[in-house]
Structure formats: C-alpha cells, structure tokens
C-alpha cells in the first residue's frame, strides 16, 4: 500500500514537471569482474513503467524524461536484479556494475569462459537473437550457435548436431527434465516448442553430470523464463508469416501474479503453426507441409524458503514427408538419386494439405519441482511424467486405410532428490540421486522392440571459487536395465533379451582470469553411453535410404574422453572481443551404421542394401572461433568460424555425415533511437559452408550413395524496429533467408539425394507485449 502511495506521489510530481521533460538518461552496464558489456539487459524505470534493453555494447538510453527521483530496475540473465535510485535534474550518463551471481548450483545456469556463472563451456541464445528465429524449429534456432549444425530429413524434420554428434549422444533438457521421446531416429526431431524458451543453451562440462553420464556430445537446455516475481500481469502475442511455404504462426502468452496472493504465480502459453509445401529455388516439393499445435501451463508457489512449481506442456505435430524421397527398393533408389531434380510428378503442388507419407507426433510433459531452503542447505524434489506418441503413415495399397503403419508409445517417469550445501563463500556441494522408469510399446510394422527399462543413478558436483580461480569437479554413476520382447501376431514370443549397463562419468573444469578482460577455461570429462534399443535390436526397412537396418545385441558401451579448452578476450575499449574454443573428443566403441554392399536383403518388394551397426574407436577434434568488432558506435561485425575433423582411428578413414567447415559473417547497423522508434537495426549475413571433402573412402567399401554436395554461400538480411503504438512497444521485423534464391544442397540433409534445399523466404514477425501498470518492488 505504501509503495502504491509512493507511486501515486511520483505520478503527481511527474505531471507537475511535465513542461521541462526533455532529459536524456544514458547508461552503460558491465560485469565488474570480466568487464563484459552486458547486452540484452533490461532497464526499467519503475515509476514510469518505461523499459529499454541494452544494445550489444551494454548501452541504454531513455529520452524525454522529467526531472525527479527514479528507481531503475536492472536485470540480466545470470545476474541478480538490482535497483538503482537516481536523481535527475539534467541529462546525464551513468555506469552500472552488474556482477554475475557466483556459485549458485540450483539455478540451471551455466557459465563459461564468457564470464557468467561458475561452470564449463556454454553458448546461449536469448533476447533479440532468439526473437529473430521465432517460427523456426528448435534445431534450426540452435544452429545459430557456433559449433551447432543441423541434421535434416527434408525441410520439416531437423535435429541439432553439436560438434558432429547428435541423437542420443546429446541430451535435450526441457525445463529441467530430460526429454525422452524418439530421439534415436534421424528423422525424429525434438518434440519441443521453441516458443517455450526464454533462453536456449548448449553446455559442456561438469554441469552435464546433472542430466546423465551419456552426454558425449553435450547438453541442450531449453529454459522458460522464470515466473513473474511481482504482482501484476504480462502478456505477449507473437505472429509471423513466411512466404516460401506460406507458413503462419501465432503464439500467445499470459502470466500473472495476483495482487492478493504474492506466493502464487502462473503462466499459460500456446502456439499454432501451419505451413504449406516448401519451394526450392527452381521447384516446389509436394507433401512437405506441416502443422503444429502446442501449449503449456506453469504455476508456482513460493513462501519464505519453500518453493514449488508445476509445469505441463503438450506438443503436437503433423509433418509431410516428400514423396520423392520415400523410395522403395534399390532399383528405383539408384535411378531416383541419379537425377538432378525430382520427377515432375513430385513437384509443383502448392497446398497446405498433407498426404501419405506423413508423421504425427505428440508429446506430453508433466513436471513438479519442490525445494526447501534451510540455512546453508537446499533440498529439492523433482518428479516428471512424459508420454510420447509417434505414428508413421506410409503409402498404403488400400486407399480406405486410415491407420498408421508404425505406432510407437513411450512413457517415462523420473524422480530426483537433490541436496545442495553451501559450505562457505567459496565452496558449494551438490549431491543427488535419481531413478527413471520407461515403457516402450509399438504396434504395426516392426522396427524396434517393445521394452521396459529401469534406471537409477546419482551424482556429486563440487564448485570452488577464489580470487582468479573457478574450479569444479563431479562424478556420476548410472545403471540401466532393459527388458525387451517382440511378439508375433500368433502371440508366440519371437525373441526376448535383457540387458544391463553400468555407466560412469566424471568431469573437471578450471577457469582462470589471466588479467582484466582475459579468461581461460579448461575442461576434461569422461562420459559413457549405453547402446540404445534401436542400436541393439532394430530390424526393418528404412524407406528414406532403401536400406534394411539390423541391430547388434553384442554392442558395448561407448566411452568418450573429452578435452575442451577455451579463451575469451574483451579489450578494455570495448571495441573488440573474441572467443576461441578447441576440443578433442576421443570415443571408444563409437556405434555407427555400416552398409554391407555384398549382402543385399531379398524381400518380396525387391532388394535392399543391408546396414548393420558396428563399433570403432573414433576421434573428433575441432575449433570454434568467434569475434566481434565495433569500428563505430553504431556498427558491428561478427565473425564465426567452426571446423571439425572426425576420424575412424581403426580404419584411419574419415567418418561419414560430419558437418563441413563453415564461416559466418554478420554486419549489423543499429539506428539511433527516435521518439517513436527504438532498437532499430539492419543486419546482413553471409554464411559460407565448405564442401565436405573428408568423406569415407569409397574404393573398397560402399559408404554413401552420392558424393558430398558442393560448397554454398547464403545471404540473409534482417531488419527490425520497435514502435510505440499507444504506449505499447510493438516489435516488427522482416527477414529474408537465402536472398539470392540459391539452389544448393547440404551434406547433412538426407534429402540431398533427391532435391535442393528451400529457396528464398521472406519472414515477417510482429511481437506485441502488454503488461500491467502496477509493478511493485
């Protein structure tokens, strides 16, 4: 009540001085420890409810302010929100130091050689960078991070690849819960709505241990924004339209904390997305439409040292598969891939309709997390339930058949109990135990068996920081029991296997601040991954490649030793910053598919190439480099380079399907803020992907069906601004992907055998935020 009165008083004073309201307040925000300029920090004048975000150099500006006393609320991810009181009589500039929080283990935040929290290597996408990607799939959004690429099946299905690794070697953590869907297949995209995320992160290092011992490639964190921590409401409407496939998106979010119930806070969010057939530079691909319906609910209760949160999300998608890539046996596969473009039968239809073959996927996630703080201790219990349904509709003989030919359902329950103990200002311990139960069922065509799996495990992580040093170390143990069976129609048990795998992981990380603005980080980790059900027991035709895949029950656990070294440098003038990351991942018993050319599989529908799972020792090593240069106040140039060398050590040959080297260039111009327009920018991007020349030797053994495609360069343009329309800051942005409408193919897209990638695409996005006036301290 007092605060309300205070606000009222301020409002009166505000109107009283309205004649001289031409004061400009400028400021600069940086981390006092690393001198990192904090971009995308929000600065809110509480009394006026006016908000701006800092630019890439950590600067912000308020115009047309009246003289008076104000409270600035400044917040930034990974930092404690601070409130600065200032008094304004004339235009002025302020410098704000904003230290990052240290040694907080419970918040899922990771940090890095970038200067955030005490952890390992991290790359994150949030704020404006994340907004530029609205409407794209999770994997496409992540591929904006240096070192992350895409593994695709056509234009509708994409999976993230981190440093050459994908699938079950990467863990995807959706709101603290390990995503358990059908991530084993190349044509199974993560079942997550990117609109849920306030921040996307890719982490490597000690914090991986929180999620599993099998994160050989890294961990992807999808983190929603925290629930509102003050009374009032906030709402946001996002819409978008993409011309290439006439895709439109609508997403809405509403969150609130009741005035009379400060302990309670909630959020509702939903997204609808629909796209028609996609067009390449020269032709449109039939049956490549998609439709997505997602929503989520979150509710939290916080009182004193007790906090509990309930989260539910539902993801539903229907994806068309390009028919020209759904080939039968070898005879037709070979002739289809020999063509430079798909037969006209498969191109030219411009429709939203999705026909066979298509996929329908649903994913439910229900999660509850409760924590209790007592002095130096914090206890947390997390429970989750996931249900994943996947239906695949093939081309069928009988036109009256509406059933899916392949039907999978996975149910996963997981429980975790953790204890965090802050021994002193420098040292924190985290110890946890978890269990997980999984049930997989199928109906229809056999591909992987039904199974039940039981997991239990535990981990310890310790973090220490003093002066210029930040040290972390941890270890984790997991045990996995799988019981499988495959039953034929008659009820006769075809085969039945039980597996038990114990896996161990450990990791240590040290980072050291050499001098002001220069920090280095080294991480050494051991992780191990038990073979998945499909690697052990798959047995069936894979239509996309005309292969017959056969699992191997004798596969052993993969063991990886990963060394990561990084350095980050910001020069004092703030005009240049650079980051370098070198990695080396040695994986023993790496599981992969090998085509066996001389043992074709004879079926009634023709001959298929046999693909078996086998193991070898491999080594992946590479470099990620990025630098940003601000030659002038308003202009910046960002350069990214990533390189990977992946070798099979046993055969001293290159590994198949590894991302080619690439260079990214981004030139951005930030316009001066006008009265009604602010945060205006224009960005030109030129991304060049080299030809993958390091492919397996085809002289003696067949590995691939077609040589790697040529190098390509794409130009993208983005421009955006925020307009004040009746005090609502409406953000509008226009992007053009593949400006020159280049026809190209990518080595990591299995569609490259048949068709080009999508052509030019104009993308329009509008964001309208609303919020309540009363925002309390």
């Amino acid at each position: 009540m007092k605060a309300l009165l205070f606000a009222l008083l301020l409002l009166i004073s505000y109107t009283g001085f309205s004649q001289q309201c031409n004061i400009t307040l400028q400021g600069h925000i940086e981390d006092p420890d690393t001198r990192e300029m904090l971009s995308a920090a929000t600065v809110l004048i509480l009394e006026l409810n006016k908000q701006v975000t800092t630019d890439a150099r950590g600067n912000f500006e308020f115009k047309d302010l009246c003289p008076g006393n104000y409270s600035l609320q400044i917040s930034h991810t990974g930092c404690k929100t601070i409130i600065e009181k200032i008094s304004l009589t004339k235009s002025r500039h302020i410098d704000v130091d904003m230290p990052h929080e240290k040694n907080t283990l419970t918040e899922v935040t990771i940090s890095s050689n970038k200067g955030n929290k005490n952890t390992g290597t991290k790359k994150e996408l949030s704020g404006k960078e994340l907004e530029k990607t609205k409407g794209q799939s999770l994997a496409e959004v992540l591929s904006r991070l240096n070192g992350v690429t895409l593994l695709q099946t056509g234009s509708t299905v994409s999976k993230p690849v981190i440093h050459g690794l994908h699938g079950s070697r990467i863990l995807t953590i959706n709101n603290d819960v390990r995503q358990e869907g059908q991530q084993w297949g190349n044509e199974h995209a993560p079942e997550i709505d990117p609109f849920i995320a306030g921040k996307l992160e890719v982490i490597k290092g000690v914090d991986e241990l929180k999620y599993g011992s099998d994160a050989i490639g890294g961990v992807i964190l999808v983190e929603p924004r925290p629930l509102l921590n003050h009374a009032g409401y906030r709402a946001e409407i996002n819409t978008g339209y993409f011309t290439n496939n006439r895709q439109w998106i609508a997403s809405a979010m509403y969150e609130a904390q009741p005035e009379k119930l400060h302990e309670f806070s909630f959020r509702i969010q939903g997204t609808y997305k629909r796209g028609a057939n996609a067009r390449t530079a020269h032709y449109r691909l039939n049956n490549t439409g998609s439709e997505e319906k997602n929503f989520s609910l979150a509710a939290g209760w916080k009182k004193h040292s007790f906090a509990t949160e309930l989260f539910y999300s539902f993801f539903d998608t229907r994806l068309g598969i390009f028919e020209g890539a759904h080939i039968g046996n070898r005879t037709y596969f070979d002739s289809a891939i020999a063509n430079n473009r798909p037969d006209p039968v498969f191109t030219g239809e411009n429709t939203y309709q999705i026909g066979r073959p298509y996929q329908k996927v649903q994913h439910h996630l229900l999660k509850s997390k409760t924590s209790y703080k007592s002095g130096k201790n914090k206890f947390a219990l997390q429970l989750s339930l996931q249900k994943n349904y996947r239906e695949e509709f093939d081309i069928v003989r009988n036109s009256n058949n509406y059933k899916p030919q392949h039907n999978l359902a996975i149910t996963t329950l997981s429980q975790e109990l953790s204890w965090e103990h802050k021994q002193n200002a420098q040292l924190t311990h985290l110890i946890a135990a978890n269990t997980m139960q999984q049930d997989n069922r199928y109906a229809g065509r056999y591909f992987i068996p039904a199974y039940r799996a039981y997991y239990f495990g535990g981990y310890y992580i310790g973090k220490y920081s003093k002066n210029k040093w930040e040290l972390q170390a941890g270890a984790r143990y997991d045990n996995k029991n799988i019981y499988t069976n495959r039953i034929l129609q008659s009820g006769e048990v075809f085969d039945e296997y039980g597996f038990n795998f114990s896996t161990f992981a450990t990791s240590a990380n040290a980072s050291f601040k050499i001098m002001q603005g220069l920090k280095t980080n080294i991480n050494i980790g051991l992780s191990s991954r038990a073979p998945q059900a499909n690697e052990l027991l798959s047995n069936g035709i894979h239509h996309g490649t005309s292969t017959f895949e056969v699992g191997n029950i004798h596969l052993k656990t993969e063991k990886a030793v990963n060394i990561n070294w990084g350095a980050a440098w910001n020069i004092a003038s703030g005009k240049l910053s650079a980051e370098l990351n070198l990695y080396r991942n040695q994986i023993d018993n790496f599981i992969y598919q090998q085509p066996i050319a001389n043992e074709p599989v004879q079926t009634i529908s023709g001959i298929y190439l046999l693909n078996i799972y086998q193991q070898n020792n491999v080594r992946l090593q590479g470099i990620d480099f990025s630098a940003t240069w601000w030659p002038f106040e308003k202009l910046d140039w960002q350069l990214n380079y990533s390189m990977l060398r992946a070798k099979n050590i046993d055969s001293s040959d290159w590994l198949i399907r590894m991302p080619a080297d690439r260079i990214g260039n981004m030139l951005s111009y930030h316009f001066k803020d006008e009265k009604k327009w602010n945060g205006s920018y224009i960005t030109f991007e030129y991304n060049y992907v080299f030809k993958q020349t390091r492919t397996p030797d085809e002289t003696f053994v067949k590995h691939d069906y077609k040589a790697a495609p040529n190098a390509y360069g794409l130009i993208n343009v983005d421009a955006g601004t925020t307009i004040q329309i009746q005090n609502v800051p409406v953000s509008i942005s226009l992007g053009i992907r593949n400006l020159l409408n280049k026809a190209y193919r990518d080595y990591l897209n299995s569609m490259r055998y048949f068709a080009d990638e999508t052509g030019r695409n104009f993308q329009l996005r509008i964001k309208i935020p609303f919020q309540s006036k009363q925002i309390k301290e």
Partner: protein
Amino acid sequence: MKKILILIIFASTLLSLNACKKFSEGETNDEELITTLQLNFTIPGSSSTQSFKFEDLDGPGGNAPVIEPIVLAAGTTYDVSLEVWNKAANPPENITTEIEEENASHRFYYSPSVGSNIVVSNLNNDDNAVPLGTTSTWQVGTASTGNISITLRHYPGTPPDKQISDPVNSPKSGTDIEVTFNYTIQ
C-alpha cells in the same frame, strides 16, 4: 491454492484422455505385409494346374524367402493367374481381391530376361481398359533356362492417373512386389 488444484485436475484429465490410445506392448501387425506371390499355370482345356511361388512367411529380414523355380513344357501356351497373400495374418489374407477391387491403381509388369523364350501377353485390363495383369497368357518356346521378373506397381495418387504408356519405373507408382523367378523350359 484453488488455482493450483484446478491446474492439476486439468492436466491430469488431459493425460488420462490420452491414455485411451492404448495398445498392447510389442504387437507386430503389419497389415501392409505381403508374404506370398503365387503363379498358377493351366493349359487351356486341361483341368490340372501347376503352381510356383515366392514366399517369405516372416516378412522382410529374418529367414530368407523361398523362391520356387518355374518348370514349364516347351512349345506350350499357358493361362497364368496370380495370387497375392499375407499368410502371416490369421486367417491368411487374400490380397488379390483387394488388388482387383482397386484395379485402377494397380498394375503388374512381366519382364522376361533378354533372349528369353517366353512371351507374356493378353494381360487383363482394369475398369479403365488399362492393363492390370492379374491374369495373362504365356507362350513358351523351345527348351532353355532364364529368369522372369514380376513387378506389382501401385498408384497412390487420387485419381491414380494410370496410363497404358506408363513404364514399370514410372514415378507415378511405387513398388509393392518385385521378385525374379528362375525358369526352366524342358
């Protein structure tokens, strides 16, 4: 507190609604499975029938299919009819009737090996007077050996747009059956 309860109830209702989608664990019922292609040969005027088949009872993979070599008499003309079965189903499913019902979207092709002494003609037509090929006439020449490929193509389009001139590898159709029999003419 009430709101939390409402949310919990809402979420659990959603989950239980979905639980209706149950199916028993690990049920293989590939209704698209074809296990058997059988050829029945009759000499016009005679009542005896000779049969040869391609059969893969456990479907793709697993045990190798059984392919019976075709043995025919030199200088004879046969009426040939085809049978397509899914014998993994219980009771066995006769797919021939299904093909005949949707005759406008199916077509059999017969390709004897180069230099073969077999001429296949007189394929039966579908409702639109385009060849279907569930029945045909084989003219067998002098004693020799060789092979013959039989392909069943299926047109998924609506309408199927099946034309007389469509080759066996027409992109309009996809392969359901593609088997090769060895033959001996004696």
